């Protein structure tokens, strides 16, 4: 059973537009949520995170929104750039010594 779900395997967006990547989770004990970005032949790199006590966190072009009642979070990238083309993983952690749990990822393609 997947605790973190990314139901869209791929997304294509035009340069300059908004990219919205979605993530759902099932474990109500999760209290931190993270987004990682992965380029081919590289390891995932941390992008942005949000605590469960917040509903929004913004860092430059990247904003993460959290809806706890719906167990849903989303990553918004505005404006999208060709260099944003990568696989984006949603991840979550429960407090304590539990491992970080990843979704399957969404491949974003930003078209110039």
């Amino acid at each position, binding site marked *: 059973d997947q605790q*973190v779900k*990314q139901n869209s*395997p791929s997304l294509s967006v035009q340069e300059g537009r908004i990219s919205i990547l979605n993530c759902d989770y099932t474990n109500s004990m999760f209290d*931190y949520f*993270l987004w990682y970005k992965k380029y081919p*032949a*590289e*390891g*995932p*790199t*941390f992008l942005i*995170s949000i*605590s469960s006590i917040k509903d929004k966190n913004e860092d430059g072009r990247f904003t993460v929104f959290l809806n706890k009642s719906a167990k849903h979070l989303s990553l918004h990238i505005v404006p999208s750039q060709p260099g944003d083309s990568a696989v984006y*993983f949603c*991840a*979550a*952690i429960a*407090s304590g*010594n*539990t*491992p*970080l*749990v*990843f*979704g*399957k*990822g969404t491949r974003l393609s930003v078209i110039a």
Partner: protein
Amino acid sequence: GAGVSQTPSNKVTEKGKYVELRCDPISGHTALYWYRQSLGQGPEFLIYFQGTGAADDSGLPNDRFFAVRPEGSVSTLKIQRTERGDSAVYLCASSPRDYPWTGELFFGEGSRLTVL
């Protein structure tokens, strides 16, 4: 370099053989993690070390998989009697594990294992 280093980057082996994958974490990071990423999947947790001891090995799929970190720095993931289903990218990550830990991991580039 200052990042997490993994060797080999690619390993091709035959079914039934023994394989070792090495991870050199960021200097000073006390926590070290092994994840496995199969095609079309996200990283799946295997094992976590805090210092020299395995704090959580609940993700190891079976007893063919074993990992060590004898001096609290470099770690080796060992796979015995490899099977074709073991083919994946094995990712190592480290973290300073400051409290409260918010989940940020620093990943290496991974070791791609192919079992023929």
